């Protein structure tokens, strides 16, 4: 089957193609060079005047795993606002803040996304995360294993074990849990909270282990680099949501000694203490530090107004945030001396000073960070807003007058204390293609995704070129996944199974000896049963494994 996408306007930043008219050919699921004139083309799509990009990639979205499933179970009233009926092609489910896996897969694809990555896979809960991801159709998936509050790592760090041993452990975890990267959440703070510590600054010690978040970040970042994990250590920093936390974030950036680091949902970590309410934007300082440090990448975790639910591994900060639960119910879990999770429903209100300023801070960050290769578009779904609000967010970035209209409607004091209105920058389609495709693919080490070069997997999105960018990005004209047309005019036309991206870093296998006795003594599951076999992911026929190379 040879498909020709004829005459579309192509945005392919990996190849420096910025809105040029090009033909794209697809054969056997891959993009291929222009065939000889004698070769028959099976199907041609006339795409003159249409915009073509690679399929979009969400590199930080809570789509699968126990945390999300608790959110689903506790929020029937949210689902009832957005029930999804079965069609001859698609299964029923529900949407909004914590959608069912099936609906999440469909909606991502209908929005032009072809891959999404679960950033908070607790090793103890990894099997369930993979089962949920396998039940998320069409899109490719992958997950980052969460470390940093797990006892095995902390006791090694406390005992000042060689970095080599820690690196082997991290390599073992990536293999055992079928992960693509490593994330750390409130480094050591989830553990500290179990010892009843209520806050943990970058240089504050965990009372039991004596380790600091700074030690943890450095050690894990080093392990990630030594193992050749393409994606830098994915850091959810200390003091999430705390006024003044921008200093912690700046210290984190400066403390990593030039090692690559990805700071996630940085909006929640960019707060100052200026003004009457002692809550202000630290976006300018953070953006300046990001601009000055090429080893740092970020995603924003944009807040958008409305009802959502916050789901996080950061039990310490989720406990502190539970007072603001809306509706008034919340869940906290301590998990297996490994990690934890907190689920707190939340409603961001545009007339609330703090919420409105959070909204402005996120946008300021987007607009003040210069290099779109190092800033990714996220809402930290569902924490800042559900992922279905991405088209709206793209419009805010691309359309200054729309942005200023919105700014005029938010809490007046928040608007007045933000510099947002004075920023003229508008994102171009090329910028959007970088931050939602090329850059996340490069950051995650997905070499044949995120671009439209020959040999790349044919994950392709075709948009109508509409002035209203929210409308444009809401319902793409065509979405191709692995070369198959899966959505048309924002509706699924074919359901396929996606793959799971994993990494297989090499490590010294002898670490299993000490791990085995550790598991036998302290854990509630055997080492062999903790590890997830490939079979478990593929045997149900709803997924396959895509092994990505280490660097």
């Amino acid at each position: 089957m040879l498909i020709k996408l004829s005459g579309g306007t192509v945005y392919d930043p990996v190849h420096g193609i910025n809105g040029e008219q090009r033909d794209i050919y697809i054969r056997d699921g891959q993009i291929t060079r222009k065939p000889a004139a004698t070769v028959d083309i099976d199907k041609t799509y006339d795409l003159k005047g249409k915009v073509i990009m690679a399929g979009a990639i969400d590199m930080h979205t809570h789509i699968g795993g126990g945390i999300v499933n608790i959110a689903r179970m506790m929020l029937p009233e949210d689902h009832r606002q957005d029930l999804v009926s079965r069609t001859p092609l698609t299964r029923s489910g529900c949407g909004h803040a914590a959608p069912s896996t099936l609906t999440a897969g469909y909606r991502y694809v209908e929005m032009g996304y072809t891959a999404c990555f679960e950033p908070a896979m607790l090793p103890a809960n990894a099997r369930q995360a993979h089962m949920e991801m396998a039940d998320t159709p069409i899109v490719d998936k992958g997950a980052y294993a969460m470390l940093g509050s797990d006892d095995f790592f902390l006791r090694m760090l406390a005992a000042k074990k060689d970095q080599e041993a820690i690196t082997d452990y991290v390599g073992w975890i990536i293999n055992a849990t079928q992960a693509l990267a490593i994330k750390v959440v409130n480094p050591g703070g989830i553990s500290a909270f179990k010892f009843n510590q209520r806050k943990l600054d970058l240089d504050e010690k965990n009372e039991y282990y004596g380790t600091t978040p700074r030690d943890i970040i450095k050690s894990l970042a080093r392990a990630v680099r030594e193992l050749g994990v393409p994606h830098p250590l994915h850091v959810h920093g200390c003091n999430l949501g705390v006024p003044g936390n921008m200093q912690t974030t700046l210290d984190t950036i400066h403390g990593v000694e030039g090692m690559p680091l990805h700071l996630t949902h940085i909006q929640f970590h960019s707060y100052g203490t200026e003004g009457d309410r002692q809550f202000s934007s630290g976006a300018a300082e953070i953006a300046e530090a990001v601009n000055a440090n090429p080893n740092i990448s970020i995603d924003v975790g944009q807040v958008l107004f409305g009802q959502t639910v916050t789901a996080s591994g950061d039990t310490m900060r989720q406990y502190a945030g539970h007072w603001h639960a809306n509706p008034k119910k919340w869940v906290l879990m301590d998990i297996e001396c490994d990690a934890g999770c907190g689920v707190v429903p939340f409603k961001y209100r545009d007339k609330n000073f703090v919420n409105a300023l959070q909204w402005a801070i996120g946008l300021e960050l987007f607009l003040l960070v210069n290099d779109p290769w190092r800033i990714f578009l996220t809402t930290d779904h569902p924490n800042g807003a559900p992922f279905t609000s991405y088209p709206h967010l793209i419009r805010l970035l691309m359309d200054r007058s729309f942005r200023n209209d919105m700014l005029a409607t938010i809490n007046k004091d928040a608007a007045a204390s933000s510099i947002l209105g004075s920023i003229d920058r508008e994102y171009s389609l090329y910028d959007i293609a970088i931050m939602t495709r090329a850059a996340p693919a490069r950051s995650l080490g997905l070499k044949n995704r995120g671009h439209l070069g020959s040999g790349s997997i044919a994950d392709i999105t075709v948009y109508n070129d509409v002035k209203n960018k929210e409308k444009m990005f809401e319902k793409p004209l065509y979405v191709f996944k692995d070369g198959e047309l899966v959505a048309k005019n924002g509706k699924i036309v074919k359901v396929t199974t996606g793959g799971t991206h994993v990494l297989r870093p090499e490590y010294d296998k002898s670490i299993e000896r000490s791990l085995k006795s550790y598991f036998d003594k302290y854990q509630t599951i055997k080492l062999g049963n903790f590890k997830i076999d490939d079979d478990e992911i593929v045997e149900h026929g709803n997924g396959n494994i895509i092994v990505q190379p280490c660097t």
Partner: protein
Amino acid sequence: MNTKQSLAIVQKDVPCPFCSIHCDDLIIHNHSGRLKIKENGCHIAVDRFERPLPQSKPTIRGKTATLDEAISQAAGIFKKSVEPLIAGLGTDVGGMRSVMELADKTGAIIDHMFNDGTTRNFLVLQDLGWVMTTMGEIKNRADLIIFAGTDAGNYPRFYERVVWNEHSMFNYDTKNRDIVYIGENLDTSQGKSPSGKKPTYLKCPQDEIGEVISVLHALVGGNKTQKKEKISGIKMAHLEKLAEQMKNAVYGVIVWAPGELDFPHAELTIQNFCEITKYLNRETRFAGFFLGGNDGGMSANNVSAWQSGFPLRVNFSKGYPEHDLQKYATANVLKNKEADALLWISSFNPEIKPPRAKIPTIVLATPDTKLDFKPDVYIPVSTPGVDHSGQMVRTDSVVSLPLKQVRNSDNQSVKEIVRRIAELV
């Protein structure tokens, strides 16, 4: 499931599917198809694993049929049905995935055999939320464990594994743990520590545990209580002592079994557990833990939640999932004659009997299940974790176990049979 593959004669680290704490250290010997647990089998595991696998054939209205005929007959029942009920749901994640597909396709109501208990929990989760913990945290961290309305006796190795464990991560002397029971008819013998330390037993009727917890809540909050000498038969002085213990605990845990709190509006008692735990976390660390969801109950609720958005008791008849914790209970649906066909699934426990309903009934059950009526279709099924591999979610709803195949069976899995029915509908 591959019945042709040769299986190792002795398998180690075998996860047990038969109760929801899913011990995974069993050593099982397969001697020509007869299983013997060499190590780490509780009485439930021994009883279930070591039963011989009897020959059993599918039947249609009592008459022996081929599997294909039975599946086709079952599909025919679904095709005619306007509102089918798929209940029992004693199966693993794979089986549940097939059930979800069939339910969605046929507009069925789904419910699990033990969801009366689980529902009490979900009522609280959806109204208040909670602070919970997992087995690994209890094992390594808990210094006070309060068993409220349960002695955990239905989970035979609970104490061995996470209460009187020899090693703990943080060098706690686990033998010094304070164990407290609140409730009635509880066997507290396992609450005695290996060093001889005795548990505290505060006796009160099960349906008054909630009141006792309320008084404890008032006491830990420093509020005034009624000037009574006793609350529900428990001396106030004993409650005052327990309140102090709770406040001073480094990591306290309240354990309950929702299925054993079997009285009207027991969810309010569970709500009291969750409210006091939340309150105690203002100063110290405290968490809840529940024992429940046997026979695949936790797996069924989790799969339902991730695929439909709702935990069990979901009705797909309108084309989208509708969730109601009371309305779609099996007993309620059958009593009100809301279903016109029943598919009953029970692949773990031969003692579980399908409800006898005056509607076309399909039974998928273990081959040694003794039915007291002739269902329209009966198909013997293999047992997950014995006859085929799979996954199950543990009671803490966090850890899931990879089940192993330790025996060959000619019977098909629920996953396979329900998938085939769904294909034909």
